[in-house]
C-alpha cells in the first residue's frame, strides 16, 4: 500500500475493516468444492421416476392452496454456485454459500404456474432432496429456511459434518431455480394466475405472485450478470462488502421488505453498467456514490432498468405498469421481472433516510467510521416506541387464505401500518411494521399455520415530543359530513364533537392524562386503535413505553409531579434573597446548583409540611419523614475589596455572610433557618435550601485559567462552585430543548446507583453522558422516549472507546477547531503514560465540556480504569438484556426489574443495612437479599433514629418539631466515611440514592500506597 493513496485515517480504518471482514477464498474453496460435490453425489443417487405426492408435506400443499401436485422425480438439470460466494464478496460472519439446483422441466406441466402449483412442487422437490441429504454421512444437519421471508418459497440450509474453525456456521443454501420452465408471457404483470384472487367475480392481476415465479426463472441469468460485473473489479467487490456491513448493522433496512445482499449487488452493478463509477474510484468512494444515489437519485421514480440483453426493448407502457404496481422497480435485463418486488414504499423510505443520515455521518470531522460501519442500529435503539403484537392463533390474519397474490402476513403488515398511520397522524415521523415470521426451526411439514408464532414488531419514530404529548387531536369540521363520518367510523366512541376557542366546531379525540404521564398518550392511542380495529386483547399488545418507570416512582407517583411547587418555592426564595437589606454586601445573583432544580434529580425533594414558614397543623397527621434533603443554591454578592486573604478566612467570611442572611430571613421574613459551621439551610415552602456563596474575585481568573493552570490563586471551592453553576445552567438549557432528556438522565442515574456505582461516577458526569446521547445522536435521530434514550446511554457507556477517544459534550455548539485541538492535547496528555503501563492513565473517562476542557471537573479521580471497565461490563450486560426485552421477551415485570437489581456476588463482602433505618425508605428499589456466602455478623438496630416522625413528636410545639426535622442527615454517608477512615484498603460500592446494600472489595491500589 503506497502511503500516497491513503489520504486519511478513515481510509486506513476501512482498509483494516475490509481485511478483517473478507473471507480467505483459498481455504474456503476446497471446503465448498468438497461439500458441493458430496451434495451432488447424494442428490444424483436419488432414483429417477418415483412418484412424489403431497404426502411429503401435506399441510404445506393444502394451505398454500395447490392441487394436482404429483410428479415423477427426475434428477436436477444441473447445479451452479451463485450469490456472494460466486462473486467473491462474502462478508464475515456470514458463511453461507448459495447453490442453485436447476429444477428439471420434466417434473412440471405447462400450466403449473397456476394456483401455487409450482410453489408446492418446488417445495416437494426440496423435501425429497432433504430426505436423501439427511442420510448422507457428510451432512450434519439440514434446516429449512425461506427466501427473503417468503414462506411459499422455502430453501434448504445444509451444514457439513466436517467443520473448519476458520468458518464458523459454514453452510450451503440450496435454492431451486426454474430456468425456462414456463412461458414468460403467461406470467406478465397484468395476468391473474391465482384463481381465488378476484373482486366481484372478476379475476384481478397477481403481479407479486407472478414475480415470485419469474424470480426463480431468472435466478441463473441474474447471477451470471452479477458475476460479469464483479469479476475483474476488485474495488466494486470491496464496495459491496462495505455496503453489506453498513446494511447489516441496520436491522430496519436489512429485511425482507427492503434491502438484501442480492439487491445491493444489483444496484451496484446497475450503477457500474451505467458508467456511474470511474474505474479509479476506491471502494469507499463507490460506497459513498452508491449511498448518494440511493438517497437522492431521481431515477428511483422512473425505475431502474438494466439494458435489455435481447431485442425486446421495454416499452413505455410496460415501464409505466411496473411503476404503478411496485413502489420500487429494479428490472433485470430480461425486462420481465422486477427484482425489487418485495420492497415496500415504507421500507424504501427508511432506506433513503438511512442512506442520507449515513452521508451526514461521513461528513463529520473524523469521517464517521464508527457511526457508519461499527454502530449496531437495531430496532430497540432505532425506534422510540416499540410495540409487539402477539398474533399466535389469531384467525384474523389468514382469514382469506395464507397465500393469495401476496402472503397474508405481508397483507397484515400493511394493514397494521395504515391503521397506525391514520391513528397517530403527525405524532409519528415514521412507522415500521415488520413481521419476520419464518424462523430457523420452521419445518415445511408443519405447514403455514404455525408461522404466526413470532410476534409482529412495530417500530415508531416520534416526530416531536410536543406533537406526541398533544392531548387533543382535531379532526374534520362538523359541516364536512363525509369526512366527519369517516373520522367517527375510525375512532368510534372516542370521537366527540367539540367547539374550540377559535369558534370552530369539529370532530376531535381527547386523550386526557396527568402532566407526568403524558408520554403514555401514544401508548393509549395505539392500544385503542389496535383493540378497536384488530380486535386483539390487551395481553396481545406489548408496548415498550413505561416499563422502566417503576424505578422513578416515589410512593405511588412520579415525584416530578410536584416539581412545579419546587420551582415556585425556589423563585420566592431567590427573590427574598435578592431583596434582603441590612447586610454589608447585597446579594447580586442567585443560581440553582441542585439537580432537582433542573429536573434531573431521581427523587426531587417532596414538600415537607414542617419545613415551612408556618406549620399547618392539619397536614401533620400523615406518616412524615424525619429527614429532609437540601438543595444547593449559589449566591453571588456585590463586589468588594474588603475580603480577607487565605482560603480559610474567605470561607469563614462566607459563613458569616450566610449567617447574617439567615438571621435576616428569620427575623424579618419569619423564614426558619438552621446552620452548622459550614452550611446554612433555609426552610421555604416545604423545602430546605442550602446556600453557598461564590466569591467573585476568583471568578475572572477562573474563566481564563480553566484547563490551563489550575493552581493559580483561585480557591478550589470557588472554582468548583463556578463549574457547578455553569453545568447547572447548561443542563437546564438542554432539558428545556429536549423534553425527554430529564427522564432519561434520571433513569441513568438510578441505574448507576442501583448497581452500587455511586462512588465511581458523579451525577454530573452521568448528566454529561446523557447529554452526549442527545447532542450527537448520529447515526440515529434524537431519542424521543425514555427506554430508547436509556438504552443509548447504556450502549454509550458500554461501547465508547474511552482509552483512545475523549468524549466531547458540545452543548451549545461552541467548540471551534482550536478548542478541539486543545481538548485533544489535554486528552493526549492524560494518556501519556499508556505506552509504558496500561494502568497508568489519569481520568479513565475523559469528559470535555465547554466549561471544562481538561476533564477536571467530574471524572479526574474516579472512575479509575478498573472501575470504568466494571461499569462498561455492567452497562453492556444491561443493554443486552434491555434490547432482548424490547424484541423478544414477554412483558414480565420481573425481567425488567433485573435491569436495576444488582448481583451481590461480585464483592468480597456485602454489608446489608437495616432497611427501617434508611432515611428515605421509599427510595429503596428492592430489598437486597443474600443467599450465598457466609453470614458472619448481625448488628442490632439502633433506636436513636427513625425515618419517620413519631406520633409523640407531632404533638410537640412547632419549634421543637422543626428541630426534630433532620436536614441532610444520611446515616449511610456517615457509615461510609467511618468505613473509609478505619479500613482504607477496602473499597466500598454503594447506592447513594437509597440502597440497603454496600459491597466491599479489596482495594489493591490503595494498599500499595
Amino acid at each position, binding site marked *: 500500500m503506497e502511503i500516497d493513496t491513503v489520504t*486519511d485515517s478513515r481510509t486506513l480504518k476501512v482498509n*483494516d475493516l475490509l481485511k478483517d471482514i473478507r473471507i480467505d477464498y483459498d481455504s474456503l474453496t476446497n471446503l465448498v468444492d468438497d461439500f458441493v460435490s458430496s451434495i451432488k453425489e447424494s442428490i444424483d443417487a436419488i432414483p429417477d421416476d418415483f412418484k412424489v405426492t403431497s404426502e411429503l408435506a401435506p399441510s404445506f400443499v393444502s394451505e398454500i392452496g395447490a392441487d394436482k401436485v404429483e410428479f415423477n422425480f427426475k434428477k436436477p438439470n444441473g447445479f451452479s454456485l451463485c450469490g456472494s460466494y460466486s462473486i467473491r464478496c462474502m462478508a464475515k460472519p456470514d458463511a453461507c454459500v448459495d447453490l442453485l439446483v436447476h429444477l428439471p422441466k420434466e417434473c412440471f406441466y405447462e400450466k403449473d404456474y397456476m394456483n401455487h402449483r409450482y410453489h408446492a412442487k418446488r417445495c416437494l422437490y426440496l423435501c425429497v432432496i432433504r430426505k436423501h441429504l439427511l442420510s448422507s454421512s457428510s451432512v450434519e444437519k439440514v434446516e429449512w429456511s425461506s427466501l427473503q421471508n417468503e414462506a411459499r418459497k422455502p430453501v434448504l440450509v445444509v451444514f457439513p459434518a466436517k467443520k473448519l474453525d476458520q468458518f464458523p456456521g459454514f453452510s450451503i443454501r440450496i435454492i431451486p431455480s426454474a430456468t425456462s420452465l414456463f412461458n414468460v408471457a403467461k406470467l406478465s404483470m397484468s395476468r391473474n394466475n391465482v384463481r381465488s384472487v378476484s373482486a366481484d367475480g372478476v379475476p384481478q392481476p397477481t403481479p407479486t405472485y407472478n414475480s415470485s415465479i419469474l424470480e426463480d426463472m431468472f435466478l441463473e441469468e441474474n447471477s451470471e450478470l452479477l458475476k460479469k460485473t464483479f469479476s475483474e473489479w476488485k474495488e466494486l467487490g470491496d464496495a459491496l462488502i462495505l455496503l453489506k456491513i453498513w446494511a447489516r448493522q441496520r436491522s430496519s433496512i436489512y429485511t425482507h421488505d427492503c434491502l438484501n445482499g442480492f439487491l445491493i449487488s444489483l444496484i451496484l452493478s446497475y450503477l457500474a453498467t451505467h458508467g456511474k463509477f470511474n474505474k479509479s474510484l476506491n471502494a469507499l468512494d463507490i460506497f459513498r456514490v452508491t449511498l448518494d444515489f440511493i438517497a437522492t437519485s431521481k431515477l428511483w421514480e422512473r425505475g431502474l432498468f438494466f439494458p435489455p440483453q435481447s431485442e425486446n426493448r421495454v416499452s413505455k407502457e410496460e415501464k409505466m405498469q411496473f411503476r404503478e404496481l411496485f413502489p420500487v422497480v429494479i428490472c433485470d435485463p430480461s425486462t420481465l421481472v422486477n427484482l425489487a418486488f418485495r420492497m415496500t414504499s415504507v421500507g424504501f423510505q427508511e432506506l433513503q433516510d438511512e442512506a442520507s443520515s449515513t452521508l451526514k455521518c461521513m461528513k463529520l470531522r473524523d469521517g464517521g467510521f464508527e457511526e457508519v460501519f461499527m454502530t449496531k442500529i437495531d430496532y430497540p435503539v432505532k425506534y422510540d416506541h416499540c410495540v409487539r403484537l402477539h398474533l399466535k392463533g389469531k384467525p384474523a390474519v389468514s382469514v382469506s387464505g395464507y397465500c393469495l397474490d401476496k402472503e397474508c402476513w405481508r397483507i397484515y403488515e400493511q394493514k397494521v401500518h395504515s391503521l397506525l398511520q391514520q391513528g397517530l397522524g403527525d405524532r409519528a415521523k415514521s412507522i415500521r411494521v415488520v413481521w419476520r415470521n419464518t424462523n430457523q426451526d420452521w419445518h415445511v411439514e408443519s405447514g403455514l399455520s404455525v408461522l404466526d408464532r413470532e410476534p409482529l414488531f412495530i417500530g415508531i419514530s416520534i416526530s416531536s415530543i410536543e406533537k406526541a404529548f398533544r392531548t387533543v387531536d382535531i379532526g374534520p369540521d362538523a359541516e364536512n359530513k363525509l369526512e366527519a363520518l369517516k373520522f367517527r367510523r375510525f375512532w368510534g366512541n372516542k370521537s366527540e364533537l367539540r367547539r374550540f376557542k377559535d369558534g370552530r366546531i369539529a370532530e376531535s379525540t381527547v386523550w386526557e392524562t396527568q402532566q407526568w404521564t403524558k408520554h403514555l398518550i401514544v401508548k393509549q392511542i395505539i392500544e385503542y386503535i389496535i383493540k378497536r380495529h384488530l380486535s386483539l386483547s390487551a395481553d396481545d399488545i406489548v408496548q415498550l413505553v413505561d416499563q422502566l418507570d417503576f424505578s422513578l416512582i416515589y410512593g405511588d407517583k412520579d415525584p416530578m409531579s410536584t416539581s412545579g411547587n419546587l420551582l415556585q418555592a425556589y423563585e420566592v426564595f431567590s427573590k427574598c434573597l435578592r431583596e434582603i437589606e441590612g447586610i454589608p454586601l447585597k446579594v447580586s445573583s442567585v443560581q440553582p446548583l441542585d439537580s432537582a432544580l433542573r429536573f434531573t434529580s431521581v427523587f426531587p425533594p417532596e414538600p415537607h409540611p414542617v419545613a415551612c414558614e408556618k406549620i399547618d397543623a392539619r397536614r401533620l397527621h400523615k406518616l412524615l419523614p424525619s429527614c429532609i434533603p437540601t438543595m444547593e443554591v449559589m449566591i453571588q454578592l456585590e463586589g468588594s475589596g*474588603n475580603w480577607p486573604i487565605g482560603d480559610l478566612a474567605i470561607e469563614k467570611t462566607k459563613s458569616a455572610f450566610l449567617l447574617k442572611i439567615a438571621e435576616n430571613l428569620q427575623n424579618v421574613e419569619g423564614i426558619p433557618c438552621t446552620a452548622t459551621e459550614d452550611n446554612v439551610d433555609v426552610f421555604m415552602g416545604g423545602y430546605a435550601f442550602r446556600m453557598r456563596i461564590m466569591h467573585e474575585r476568583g471568578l475572572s481568573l477562573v474563566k481564563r485559567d480553566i484547563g490551563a493552570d489550575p493552581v493559580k490563586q483561585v480557591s478550589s471551592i470557588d472554582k468548583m462552585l463556578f463549574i457547578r453553576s455553569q453545568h447547572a445552567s447548561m443542563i437546564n438549557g438542554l432539558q428545556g430543548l429536549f423534553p425527554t432528556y430529564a427522564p432519561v438522565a434520571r433513569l441513568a442515574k438510578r441505574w448507576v446507583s442501583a448497581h452500587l456505582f455511586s462512588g465511581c461516577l458523579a451525577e454530573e458526569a452521568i448528566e454529561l453522558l446523557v447529554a452526549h446521547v442527545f447532542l450527537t445522536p448520529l447515526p440515529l435521530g434524537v431519542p424521543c422516549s425514555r427506554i430508547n434514550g436509556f438504552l443509548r446511554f447504556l450502549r454509550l457507556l458500554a461501547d465508547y472507546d474511552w482509552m483512545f477517544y475523549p468524549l466531547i459534550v458540545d452543548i451549545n455548539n461552541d467548540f471551534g477547531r482550536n478548542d478541539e485541538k486543545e481538548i485533544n492535547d489535554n486528552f493526549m496528555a492524560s494518556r501519556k503514560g499508556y505506552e509504558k503501563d496500561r494502568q497508568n492513565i489519569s481520568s479513565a473517562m475523559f469528559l470535555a465540556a465547554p466549561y471544562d476542557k481538561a476533564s477536571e471537573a467530574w471524572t479526574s479521580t474516579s472512575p479509575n480504569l478498573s472501575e470504568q471497565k466494571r461499569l462498561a461490563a455492567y452497562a453492556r450486560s444491561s443493554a443486552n438484556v434491555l434490547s432482548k426485552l424490547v424484541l423478544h421477551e414477554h412483558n414480565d415485570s420481573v425481567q425488567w426489574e433485573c435491569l436495576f437489581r444488582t448481583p451481590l456476588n461480585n464483592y468480597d463482602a456485602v454489608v446489608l443495612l437495616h432497611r427501617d433505618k434508611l432515611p428515605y425508605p421509599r427510595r429503596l428499589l428492592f430489598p437486597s437479599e443474600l443467599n450465598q456466602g457466609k453470614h458472619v455478623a448481625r448488628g442490632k438496630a439502633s433506636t436513636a433514629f427513625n425515618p419517620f416522625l413519631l406520633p409523640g413528636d407531632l404533638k410537640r410545639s412547632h419549634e421543637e418539631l422543626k428541630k426534630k426535622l433532620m436536614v441532610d442527615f444520611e446515616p449511610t454517608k456517615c457509615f461510609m466515611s467511618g468505613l473509609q477512615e478505619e479500613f482504607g484498603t477496602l473499597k466500598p460500592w454503594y447506592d447513594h440514592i437509597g440502597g440497603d446494600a454496600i459491597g466491599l472489595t*479489596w482495594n489493591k491500589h490503595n494498599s500499595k500506597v
Partner: protein
Amino acid sequence: MQRKKKEKTSNVELSELPQAISSEKTKGKKVELKKKMQKSKRKVEETSSSPADGKMQKKRKAKGGNVDISELSQITSEEKIKGNKSKLNKTKNKRKAEEINSGPVDHEDDHLKSEVDGDKGSSEDVNADMASNETETRNRNLKGKSKKSNKKRKTNRSSTKENETSSEKMNETEEEKDVYQISSGDEDCSKGMKKWVTDYYESRPGLDELQKRIDDFMTDHEERLEQERKDREAKAAEGGWTVVVHHKGRKKTTDPESGIAVGSVNQTALEDQVAKKKQSEPVAHGFYRFQRREAQRNEILALQSKFEQDKKRIQQLRAARKFKPY
C-alpha cells in the same frame, strides 16, 4: 477464571489448615500469621496448575507477595484475634463458596461476572494470590452484617484484647452460632447511629453561637495577621533594612492585601485588550503571499501530525481487535 481461582485458593486452604492449627497452639499470634501467609504463598506457586503461563504467573505472584507482606504488617497489628477466627472459619467459608460457584447461578450474574473478571485481566492473578489475605477480609468484613458491624467490631476487639485467652474460647463458641452479634451502640455514644445523631444535633448549636465562633475566629485571624505584620516590621527595624525579593513575572497591578487595582489599568481589562488586539490584526490573513504560504505549511504540518497520530491509534485499535462489526 473465577472457578479456577476458587479451586486454587481452596487447595491452599485445605492443605495449610492442619499446620495452621497446630502452630496456633504454640506460637505467638503475630509471628504465626505471617508465617502462614508466606506458606500459603508458596503453596499457591506450587499448585499453579497451568505450566504454560507458569512463569508469568510466578512473576506476578512475586509482586503480589510483596504487597501481601506490606499489608500484613498493617493487618497483623490490629487483627490478631481476627486471624485466629478466620482460620477456623475459613474451611467452611471456602467450601460454601465452592458450592455456590458450582451451583446454578443466575444467568445474568454469571455473565456479568465473567465479563468483569475478563476485564480485570492481569490483576486477577494478584488477586488470586491474595486470596488467603482476602478470606481474612471476608471474615473481617462479615458477609451480610449490619451497618455498624465494622466499627462495633473494633470496639469489641479492644475490649477483648486484654483477656485474649477467654476470647479465644468465646470465638469457639461463636463458631457454633456462626453469627457475630453486634450491639446497636446505643449504650455508649462512641460509634454508630447514636453518635451520628448526636453529632448532627451538636453541629447545630444555633445561629448566635455560630456567629460567635466566627467572630472569635476572625479576631484570632486578625490578631495573627497583626502579629505577623508586627514581626515583619520588627525584623525590618532590627536590621534597619529589608530584603527585597525579586518577583518573577509582570508587576502586579492589584494590591494583594486589599484587592484594589493599584495601577491605572485593571489586569483583566488589559489582557482582554491584548487578546482583542491579537484578533483584529491590521491585515487580513492571506493578504500577503508569505502569510498564505505559512498558513498552508502550518496546515500541512498539522495534518501530518494528525495523520501520524491516527496511524498510531489504529495500531492500538488493531491490537485491541476493534474492527469487528459483528
